């Protein structure tokens, strides 16, 4: 080939033979550590699935759907519905509160201020869940700070029950999962360039209209992601309902724990766990299905 002299001087060292490893194999190699890690998790989940169709005392050999049938009893069914309802309501409230915070964060100009804001929002993830729950106890308990203050001001004559009921648990759920809502929303809103807001303004939109008709719909994928994260996180919440709800707010994770720790009923606990995972996955799939088209349109444009 006449042109080879242009690119390779005569007598140069021969090119190293191409690595025999193919690019796709290299990619898999790169993924191995995380795949191993995930593999253990998946194996554990499959073990749970196996145990859920076993019987008490013969988790590995027996086969029975009794544990699932048991979940249809009103007591368990109520717990499942309560769990889903609290997770859903907490997700809605968290997103509602997180949207203005996320918008504010996405529009902060000063990097320092943005970092301070981010640290403040991330606090709940940095502080132990147990400590946060005890914090709520100190504030909301019957002899807690809030009740003391209200009593002192003469606004109430008996302590208000804010704990050991669904209100208390809901407050705890919203607060502990708040960062999970803020982060995707702020990041989605940062993706909505300033020029879209300015364009809407020049077309005649007031600030509120700009927010409602341009910023919100354009960051909807992030808002849905936030809601889904909070929902999934809270559906399996354990510490918060245990400490702030006592035994009066039996969310499913608490029940799972009770089945195992005092009762040693592995099949029942496993079945409850499987149902929790499946319902959560189903709801997340549904939300992806509903918002997927819009997400793809928005992503194609950015």
């Amino acid at each position: 080939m006449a042109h080879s002299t242009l690119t390779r001087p005569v007598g140069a060292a021969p090119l190293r033979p191409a690595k025999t490893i193919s690019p796709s194999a290299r990619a898999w190699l790169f993924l191995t550590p995380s795949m191993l890690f995930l593999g253990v998790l998946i194996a554990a989940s499959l073990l749970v699935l196996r145990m859920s169709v076993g019987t008490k005392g013969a988790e590995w050999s027996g086969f029975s759907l009794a544990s699932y049938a048991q979940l249809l009893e009103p007591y368990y069914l109520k717990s499942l519905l309560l769990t889903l309802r609290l997770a859903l309501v907490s997700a809605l409230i968290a997103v509602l509160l997180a949207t203005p915070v996320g918008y504010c964060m996405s529009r902060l100009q000063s990097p320092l201020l943005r970092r301070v804001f981010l640290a403040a929002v991330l606090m709940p993830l940095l502080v132990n869940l147990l400590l946060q729950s005890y914090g709520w106890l100190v504030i909301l308990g019957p002899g807690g700070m809030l009740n003391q203050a209200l009593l002192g001001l003469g606004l109430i004559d008996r302590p208000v029950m804010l704990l050991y009921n669904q209100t208390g648990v809901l407050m705890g759920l919203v607060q502990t999962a708040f960062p999970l809502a803020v982060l995707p929303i702020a990041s989605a809103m940062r993706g909505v360039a300033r020029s879209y807001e300015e364009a809407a303004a020049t077309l005649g939109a007031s600030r509120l209209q700009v927010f409602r008709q341009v910023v919100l719909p354009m960051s909807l994928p992030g808002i849905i992601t936030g809601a889904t994260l909070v929902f999934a996180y809270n559906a399996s919440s354990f510490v918060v309902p245990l400490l702030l709800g006592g035994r009066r707010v039996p969310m499913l994770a608490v029940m799972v724990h009770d089945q195992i720790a005092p009762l040693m009923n592995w099949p029942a606990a496993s079945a409850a766990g499987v149902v929790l995972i499946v319902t959560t996955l189903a709801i997340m799939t549904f939300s992806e299905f509903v918002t997927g088209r819009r997400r793809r349109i928005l992503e194609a444009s950015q």
Partner: protein
Amino acid sequence: MSGLVLENVGKHYGSACAVTDVNLHLPEGKLVCFLGPSGCGKTTLLRMIAGLETLSDGEIRLDGQDIGHTPAHQRNFGMVFQSLALFPHMTVGENIAYPLRLRGVSKVDQQARVTELLQLIQLQEMVDRPVAKLSGGQRQRVAIARAIAARPKLLLLDEPLSALDAKLRESMQIEIRQLQQRLNITTILVTHDQREAMTMADIVVVLGEHRVQQVGTPIEIYRNPANAFVADFIGSGNIFPATALGSGRVGLPGGAALQVPICESIQAGASIKLLVRPEDLQLSLPQASAGNCLPGTVTFVRDSGATVETTIECSGVSLTALSTPCQSIGLSIGNPVSVTIPAAACRVLTA
């Protein structure tokens, strides 16, 4: 006074000045072009007119009414952004109807106006497409249609063509100009591309170093630049130092003298700058120097097919002459040549 009036308008961020001391009158129905290098404050000026930037100084009046502090959404100006900023979550039709929806126009009237505008931009069949599915030129037209949908008093274009490739840009320039003339809408176009300004504008406002350098028709600005900045920025030109000798004669650094139009305000002995456009220089085979015909040596020839650019070293200055291939006399580097600089083609600029 009707039209848009800017009086002593200025904007500074802390001690940094973006633009200062702008006094302009934009007559109705004209296309005015803000032309200048990047960072000259032209976009800031446009954004102040749009209401996206607050005024630091001065006043903006529209038909006698002070609008300098009216919020953007109450000004009823249409604006096309450099990024176009078409809403990706809306279809083409919804984008165009958006300003109408904000004004509470009925659904039927919205639809009628959208159809009318889509016909105007020849995209009737695209009404239900998402904007992501459009080509660059189509998006451009949709952005303009959206900006004029609510019949704004002023159309503001912020470098709207910079994202298009050269060929499409040229055809869009003509298209926008024709549309503007047909609708007779007062338009401000911001650009750094002087060819674009020359193609489209009725009036060009040259901005540089944070202030207005010159206001005039494109040809005035090209032929009669007010100062060295404008002369240098608009078109290519030979600008070189010279000394005034009195009675319309100037001396070149190399000693030769030229006859130029008499400029009353300049004293003999003052150092000045001369501007000669490359297309005004005439090259000929060497001959005795007489009047404005000087001897020189060819130092570079750039033959691009359609035009021939010849660079000549002549009496201490380097001149570039532009000629068509049929005027060309077949010069190559090192050839002696005679350059004729017509007196009428020389512009004296105060240095």
